[in-house]
Each structure stands twice: as C-alpha cells, then as structure tokens.
C-alpha cells in the first residue's frame, strides 16, 4: 500500500495539460472533411461536449469540436430522468433541448469560438425540410455542419429521418443549397441498409457520414419494472454498442468514397484503431468523456505515439501493419 505524498495545490488536470507532447513532423494525423482539414481525426460526439469542458482538457489537441444538436426553434427537452446507467451501457433521453439557432448564436457559439479548433455545428430537424432553414439561420457560423438525421421524424410516425435514403437525400440537397461548408450526415443504427443511407448522403453532396448515433432502448427499473426514463425510450451508448457500430462502419466504408467518421463506444486508442481498421477516417468520443474527460485527448496523443513506434507516417500504414 503506497500512498502518494501530500501535494502542493496542483492537480492531475494541470499535469495533463503540461504533458502535451511535441508535434512530430514524422507523423501526419490530418484528415480532410470536404474543404476542411482537421489536424487529427479525434473529436467529441455531439451532446457529449460543451465549452465548459474546455477548462478541464486541452481542447486544442483535438481535431475539432462538435456542438450539441441545434434545432431551428427552441425545445425544452424531455422529463426527468433523462439518463441512467444500466449494465448494457448508458441510456439517455435528453430530448435535445435547444435554444434554437438564434439562441445558439447568441449564447453558445461565442464560447465555442474561444476554443481554438474547428467547430462542427450539429443541426437537427423534425422533418426533412427543417434542416436547411436552421443552417441558413446559423448565418455561416461554424466550420462544418453535422446533420443529425437520427431524430424522430414527424413525417413518418416517429421513425428516424436517417433510416430513409430518400429523406436523407432531401435533407442534404436542401442544406447544400444554403451553404458551401462541409456537410457530415450522422446516421442512425436501426436501419436495414446503412450502405444505402451512406450512398444517399454521398450522392446528395455530403462530405462525410458519421456512423452512428445511439441505439434506441428501453431501460426498466429493477424493482417495479417501470421505465427509468421520463421519455420511456432513450439511446443506448457506450462500449457495448461498439461491435454493432463496427459492422455499420465497415459496411458504410465499403459503400462510399467520402470519409466515414466512426462514433460508438470509443474509450481507448485501441477502440479507435478498431474503427480505423474497418475503414473509418475519423472518430468521435461520446460516453467515455463523462467518466474520463481527458479520454479524447489521450487518444489523439497516443495515435501519434503509435505511429512513431511503428515508424509509419500515418494511421493508414499503421493499420496495414496489424494486418500484415
């Protein structure tokens, strides 16, 4: 039993900031999403990041940040409980409270701008026609847009817009008319063909797809078998969904030429490399940040270390080595 000696009022957080590794010219972790080049392929998942995290981790070491989904008009979000943890993972039914595009521009975007990395603004809508107006109302704020088509769809009795290739096509086409900025389409898990969905996004002009959102689930209390969440249904996230999402990323990567950004249960550098090995070109970290706020930055740092150790210039070649 060893007990660390008393510390002067410093903390692991400041030590982590200080441990920033030197950038190595020998390794190139950059990734292009349309016209935008990210310094490295690691970023947060929408809804699992906010500017307040900027006080806890060196956000400048990330490739980008992604905002919580912004809707056109204000939404209050769902009733409590909005999240819980069960053995299968974390389940949330936050319900995307939003102050609307104007509220975002006034209250949140200025904070995101202070972070010093590209800002990807996540955009939501209840119908396929609702996305383009939000992007217009954002008046050019943000370096790219992630179109969250994994929200309940008012047009088709509550199924996801993103499960219908035609609706995806429409969303992207309409948004494309509003902006030249890079567009990422974030797809849902419960689709019969992720390949068709990814192809629809690509055909309509998207610059990347993000695979995937959380998996709809219904957690019950152990005692009375009643729903834990105020909204009954929520999205399952965390490491247990990783093998499900790995398959989707594998299929999507084989279906399209545009980059696939993997999102689902990434906690470690190995998890990220799993996704790179099935074709992903970038990764988003969601649930893992709650337990270990520095997880994303740790992954970005370790990707460089792994490349240096293997004496390769980029992640693509690192993957080839594992497969050799």
């Amino acid at each position, binding site marked *: *039993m*060893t*007990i*660390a000696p*008393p*510390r*002067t*009022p*410093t*903390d*692991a*957080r*400041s030590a982590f900031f200080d441990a920033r590794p030197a950038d190595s010219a020998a390794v190139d972790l950059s990734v292009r999403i349309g016209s935008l080049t990210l310094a490295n392929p690691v970023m947060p998942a929408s*809804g*699992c*990041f*906010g*500017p*307040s*995290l900027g*006080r*806890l981790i060196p956000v400048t070491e990330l490739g980008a940040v992604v905002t*919580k989904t912004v809707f056109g*008009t*204000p*939404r*209050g*979000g*769902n*009733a*409590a*409980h*909005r*999240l*819980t*943890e069960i*053995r299968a*993972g*974390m389940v*949330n039914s*936050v319900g995307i*409270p*939003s*102050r609307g595009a104007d509220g975002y521009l006034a209250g949140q975007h200025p904070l995101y701008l202070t972070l010093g990395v590209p800002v990807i603004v996540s955009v939501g809508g209840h119908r396929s026609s609702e996305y383009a107006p939000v992007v217009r109302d954002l008046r050019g704020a943000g370096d790219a847009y992630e179109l969250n088509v994994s929200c309940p769809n008012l047009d088709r009795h509550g199924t996801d817009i993103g499960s219908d290739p035609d609706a995806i096509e429409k969303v992207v086409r309409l948004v494309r008319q509003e902006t030249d900025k890079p567009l990422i389409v974030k797809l849902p898990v419960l689709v019969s063909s992720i390949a068709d969905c990814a192809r629809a996004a690509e055909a309509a002009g998207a610059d990347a797809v993000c695979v995937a959102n959380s998996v709809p689930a219904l957690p019950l209390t152990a*005692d*009375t078998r009643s729903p834990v969440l105020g909204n009954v249904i929520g999205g399952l996230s*965390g*490491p247990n969904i990783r093998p499900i999402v790995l398959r989707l990323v594998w299929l999507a990567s084989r279906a399209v030429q545009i980059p696939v950004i993997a999102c689902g249960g990434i906690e470690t550098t190995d998890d990220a490399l799993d996704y790179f090995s099935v074709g992903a070109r970038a990764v988003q970290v969601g*649930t*893992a*940040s*709650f*337990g*270990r*706020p*520095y997880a994303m930055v740790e992954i970005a740092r370790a990707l460089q270390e792994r490349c240096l150790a293997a004496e390769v210039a980029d992640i693509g070649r690192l993957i080839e080595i594992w497969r050799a």
Partner: protein
Amino acid sequence: MPGTPAETPAVLAARDALAALRRQQAFAAADEAALDGLIAVRPPARTPRPDPVWDDAPVLVHEVVGERYRRLVLRTATIATTALAGQFLMITVPPKGGERILLPRPMAIHRRHPEQGTVEVIYGVAGRGTTALADVVVGESLLVTGPLGRGFEFPDAALPTATPSAGPGPQPARTALMIGRGVGVCAIMGSVEDAADQGISATVVLSGRSRANLIGLADCAELGATVIPVTDDDGSSALPALGERLRARFAATPPDVILVCGAGVLARLAAELGSEWDVPVQVSLEAHMACGLGYCHGCAAPVATDPAVEGPLVCVDGPVFDAVLPLTAAAGGANAAG
C-alpha cells in the same frame, strides 16, 4: 385467489419481497410528490464559483461508518482548497474484476480539510456503481472532478468563508437550522463548517433509520453545532413529531435560514416552517448526472417551465435551489413517513 395450496419456501420468499417493494414504492411516491411546485432557481450568487478540475485523488481512508455507509478521505489539494459548502464531486468508479462503470457518480463534499489537502465523502451502497466503488482500497486513486455546482449560501453573507462583520453591507445570518437525512447530511455539512467559521449558530437535525446510522454526529460536535438527532426506530424522525419539536424549539426566535437535504418530505416540512417563520429555505436536490458540468443536459430539475424552454439543470443551477415561499400547495406531502 386466496388460500392457494402451494405455500412453498420459494412462494413465501416471493411474497415477502413483494410486500417490501410495496412499502418502498409508497415512500418514494410521497417523497417525489412532496417536491411538486416547491423549487425555484436561486438568484445569481455574489460569490464567484471556483473553477472545477479533475484529479487523481489517492484514497487515504475508506471505512465503513454506521451500518450502511462508507467514508472516503481523498487527497486532492486543489478541490479541498477551493470547494464551497454544498458543492459536489463526480467520482469515476475504476474498472475492477470485470465491472465497468461508465458514468461518474455525483457525491457531496462532506468535509473540506484545506490544510491537509483532503476532502471527505460519505456514501451509501445503492446500485452497481456504489457497489463497485466500495471495492476501492486505500492507496488506490480515484478520478474526481470538482468542485461542482451551486452550493448553500447563507443569506447576505458576501463570502461564506469571510469573517462575520457588523460593518457596512447587509446583515449576515446569525443563526441557521440545517436538516439532513441519510447521506443528505453530507450536502449540508459544508455549511456547518462555514457556520463555525463565520460564528453563525447552527442547529442541525440529523435524521436516519437508527442512532447507529446517523451521519455527522462527530462532525457537528467538532464544529460546535447543536445537534437534534432523530431516528425512525424511536419514532422521533416522523414528520409531525419533528415539526412540533422544531416549532417548540424556535418558538421565541426563528432561525435566519433553513438548509435541507435528503428527502422531499423533509424539504416540504422545511418549507412549511420557513413559511410560518418567514425565513428563506434552501434545498439541495439529486438528479441523474453524466457530466456534472452543464453540457450533457441530463440533470433536469423538477421545476415546471414552458415546454419550449429548458428548465434549470441540477448540476449547474443547483444542486441547491430556493424553496418557493410562502408555501401555497396543501402540506399533505409532509405527513408521509419521514
């Protein structure tokens, strides 16, 4: 279907479990109903909140206290030095023996010892996360994030840790009634510390199932607070009994403020007393949390708002809220078992 034949042991055990569940359900329903319409966001604080940090905090002590709780002493100098009364930590439960806990668990900072660079946390083993937390041994480190949230503040006290002064500015509180039940005591103990620092006379109701399970007796003794211990086993914690006792005690001069944490029905009792005495009441709440920092939007407070406007968040707008006074709704909730 009464008088069915097969009264096997399995059947009898299932019957007991069902009865226990029904009692528990009844209490939970009363407790939740008691908070209805009671809570409002506090006006902006004049004390700037400390910046949160995360730290790998060595576990110096991890011991069983009473019959149901565990006490952690964590070395984390920054947090120990900066935390305000009623703030909390997010404690990440380390993976162990195959158990993986994803979300950190919110825990009140029970005591701050800035000289030693340590904080104390007392917790009850409830579900998966706290069961896994109980396996942590002295010498390991816990990842903690904090100090977080809006804590208790004595009315008109510009800086909770400042020395009381009769000089210029509004009159600070001189007496306080604190009410805590179970681990809810931990949320108020920082204010008991502040009261001792600021020369405020603190009366602290410690409520629990039995004397052996009361949290904070030794802390209050050390801090010079007056304790009113009440327990379920002798009936003293029952709300009507406790209400009468407090009314009698403060009949001459009511306290300047009431701080409460640990049960909805106790919050409502405090609000009743606050209404009668015309003194402010602050209530610390719990909510399921993921980030503790205000960005995940997981911890909606039970405050009704326009459906298009998000209500307050327990982690940043609370956990301490004002009780809406005077109390208008029927005080029925407070009559449930306490």
